[in-house]
C-alpha cells in the first residue's frame, strides 16, 4: 500500500474532497484524541518498525510504527480467532476464503487495470474439478491428488481465457471474461448429467472441527497474502501497475505488456484454484449458484474495491469487511435489503473513496508518523 502505487492522475475531485475531510478530522484537528494517542505511540513503535524495514522492507514495503502495529494486530487477531470469536468461526472461515479470491483478482485486475469478470469461472473450475473427481472417479481420492489437480485445471482454464483475450487492449478483455462466465454457467446446466445441474456435487468437508477447519483455510490464505504482497512489491508488480497507467510506455521500455498480462493472469489463477478448492470443502459441495454466477465475480471485485485495489492487503481486509457485513452485521435486514445496502456501500466507496477504505486507514496511520520516511 505504498504511495508509489498511486499516481495523482486518477484521483478525482470528489475523492480529493473525501480525503481532505479525512485528513482534516485526523490531522489538522489532530490535537484531538487520535493525534494525542497516535503520535507518542508512533514514537514508541518506530524503532521496531525501523528494524522491520531494514530486514524485510525491501521485499514487502516499508512501514511506519503504527502501520506495523496494524499488521501485527490483524495477523494476531486472525491467528487467535478461535480464542475470541468461537461464535464467528464460520463467517471468519468464509472471509478467509473470499480474501483469497479478492487477492487473486487484485493481482491481475487491480494491478493491470484489465478488469476481469471471469474470476468466478476460475474458482468454479477448481471446485468442479474436485467435485467431478470425487463424484466420477473415486470418492476416496486423497486431497493430495485433488487439490493439485484442481489448481492445475484452473491455471489451464485461466490460460485458455487469457491467451485470446489479453492480446486485446482496453475494454474488450472485460467483455470477453463477462461472456465466459455466462457460458461457464450455461455449461454446468448443459452438462448436468455430469455436474448434477443446479443441485451441484457433494464434496466432503475437510473436518467437522470448526477450529481445525478455520486454520486449514487461514494458513493457505496467509501464505497467498504473503506471496502476492511480495510479488506486488517486486519489479513485476511495478511493471503491472505501469501497464495500468501507460501501456505504451511499458512497450517503449522494451517490455512486452502482453507477456506480463498473461503472467499476471496465471499468477491470479493459482490463488483462484486454491480458493475454489477451499470453498468446495468448506461448503461441502459445489454448485453454480455459490461458485460460478457472475455475481460472485462482482463480489470479489467489490471486496477489492472496498479494501483498495492494487494493494493485495487492502482486498484482504475488504473481504473480511464484506463477508462480515454480509453474513453477520446486516443479516437482520433480510435477504434483498442486505444486498442492496452492501452494493450501495460499494458504490459510495467507488465514488467518494476510490482508493479504498483500508488504503485510507493505512495512509492516515502513515501520516501520523510524519515525514520520517
Amino acid at each position, binding site marked *: 500500500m505504498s504511495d508509489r502505487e498511486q499516481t495523482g492522475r486518477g484521483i478525482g475531485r470528489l475523492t480529493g474532497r473525501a480525503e481532505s475531510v479525512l485528513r482534516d478530522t485526523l490531522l489538522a484537528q489532530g490535537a484531538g484524541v487520535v493525534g494525542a494517542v497516535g503520535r507518542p505511540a508512533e514514537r514508541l513503535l518506530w524503532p521496531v518498525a525501523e528494524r522491520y524495514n531494514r530486514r524485510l522492507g525491501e521485499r514487502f514495503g516499508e512501514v511506519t510504527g503504527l502501520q506495523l502495529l496494524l499488521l501485527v494486530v490483524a495477523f494476531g487477531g486472525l491467528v487467535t480467532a478461535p480464542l475470541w470469536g468461537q461464535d464467528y468461526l464460520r463467517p471468519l472461515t468464509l472471509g478467509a476464503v473470499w480474501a483469497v479470491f479478492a487477492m487473486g483478482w487484485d493481482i491481475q485486475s487491480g494491478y493491470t487495470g484489465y478488469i476481469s469478470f471471469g474470476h468466478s469461472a476460475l474458482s468454479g473450475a477448481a471446485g468442479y474439478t474436485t467435485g467431478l473427481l470425487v463424484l466420477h472417479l473415486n470418492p476416496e481420492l486423497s486431497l493430495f491428488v485433488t487439490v493439485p489437480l484442481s489448481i492445475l485445471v484452473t491455471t489451464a482454464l485461466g490460460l485458455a481465457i487469457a491467451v485470446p483475450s489479453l492480446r486485446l487492449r482496453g475494454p474488450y478483455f472485460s467483455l470477453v471474461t463477462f461472456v465466459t462466465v455466462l457460458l461457464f454457467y450455461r455449461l454446468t446446466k448443459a452438462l448436468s448429467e455430469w455436474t448434477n445441474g443446479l443441485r451441484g456435487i457433494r464434496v466432503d468437508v475437510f473436518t467437522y472441527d470448526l477450529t481445525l477447519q478455520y486454520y486449514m483455510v487461514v494458513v493457505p490464505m496467509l501464505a497467498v497474502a504473503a506471496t502476492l504482497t511480495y510479488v506486488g512489491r517486486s519489479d513485476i508488480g511495478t511493471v503491472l501497475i505501469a501497464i495500468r497507467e501507460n501501456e505504451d510506455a511499458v512497450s517503449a521500455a522494451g517490455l512486452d505488456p502482453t507477456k506480463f498480462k498473461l503472467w499476471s493472469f496465471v499468477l491470479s489463477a493459482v490463488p483462484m484454484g486454491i480458493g475454489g478448492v477451499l470453498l468446495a470443502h468448506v461448503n461441502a459441495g459445489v454448485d453454480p449458484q455459490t461458485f460460478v454466477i457472475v455475481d460472485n465475480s462482482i463480489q470479489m471485485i467489490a471486496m477489492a474495491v472496498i479494501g483498495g485495489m492494487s494493494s493485495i492487503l487492502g482486498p484482504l481486509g475488504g473481504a473480511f469487511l464484506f463477508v462480515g457485513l454480509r453474513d453477520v452485521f446486516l443479516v437482520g435486514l433480510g435477504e434483498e435489503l442486505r444486498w*442492496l445496502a452492501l452494493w450501495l456501500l460499494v458504490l459510495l466507496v467507488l465514488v467518494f473513496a476510490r482508493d479504498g477504505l483500508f488504503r485510507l486507514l493505512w495512509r492516515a496511520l502513515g501520516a501520523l508518523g510524519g515525514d520520517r520516511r
Partner: protein
Amino acid sequence: MLGDIASVIVDGALISAVYALIAIGFTMVFGVGGVLNLAHGALIMAGAYTYLSLVSDSILASVTLHPIVAFPLTVVIVGLISYGLYVVLVRTIEENVVITFLATIVVAIAFTELVTLVFHAQPYQYSVVPGVLQVQALGTRILYVELAAFVASWGAMGLLWYYVTKTDSGRSIRATSMSERGAMLTGVDVPGVRARTWLVAGGLAGIAGVFLGGIGAAEPTMWLEPLALAFIIVVVGGIGSIKGSVAAAYIVGYLQTATGQFLGQSVRGIMSLVVLVVVLLVLPQGLYGTEFVHE
C-alpha cells in the same frame, strides 16, 4: 425441416432487430463518452418492469393504462432513468474508465436486488400484443408480439437514423463520437451531447425491454443475457459503430436462433462465443470499428 428453416429465418429476423436496438444504445454511449455502460442491461429490465407496472393491475392497482399509452410512457421513463444515472453518478466519475466501469456493474447488481425486493424473484408474464399469426405456406407461426417488436425496433432505428443524420442535435452526437476535440472546436456542447446520448440509449433500451419481457418474461435476472449479447454484437460489429451493430446483431441473432433450433437451447450461447473469439483474433476492431484507443 423446411418449417424449421423457415422459422429460423423469420424468428432470426424478428429477434435480431431487438438485439440491434440494445447494441446501438450500448455502442452510442461508448462512442461519445468512452463509457462502457454495464448498467445497460438494467435499463432493459427497467423497461420491462415499468411497462408491467403500468399495464397490469396486479402491481399498482390504481394504475392500469392501455398499451398504446403505456409503451411510450415506459420509453420516456427509462430514458429519464438513464439520463439520471448519467447526471447523478457517471458524470462525477467518468474521467476514470475503470471506476466508471465498476460503478455501472454495481448499479446493475444493486438494481437487480431492488427489483427482487419490490417484485420478488418470480417471473412475470405479460402480453404486449396478444395473438399468433399462422403462416401456412411456410408451416411456421409468428407471435404478434415478435412482429410488433420488429416493427417498433426498425421504426426506432429509422427515427434514430433521421435524428443522427438530419438534425443538428443528432449530428453533434455523431461528431462527438468521431472526434471529441473536433466537436468541441466547432462549438458542440460535449457534456450536453453525452447526457443526450444517455437519454436516447435509455429510450432504446426501454423499447427493447418491453418486448424482451413480453416475449419471455420479466424477472430479476433478465438483464444478463441481453447485456452479454450486446457485448458480443458490439465487439463483432466494431465498438462505436451503429452500422456495425445492426449488421452484427443480425449475424449473432441468426446464429443464436439457428443453434437453438438445430442443436438445442442449452448450447445457444456457445456459437456466439466462438464467433466472438474468432472475430477478436482475426479482426480485433470488428466489422466496422476503429480499434479502441486506450487514452
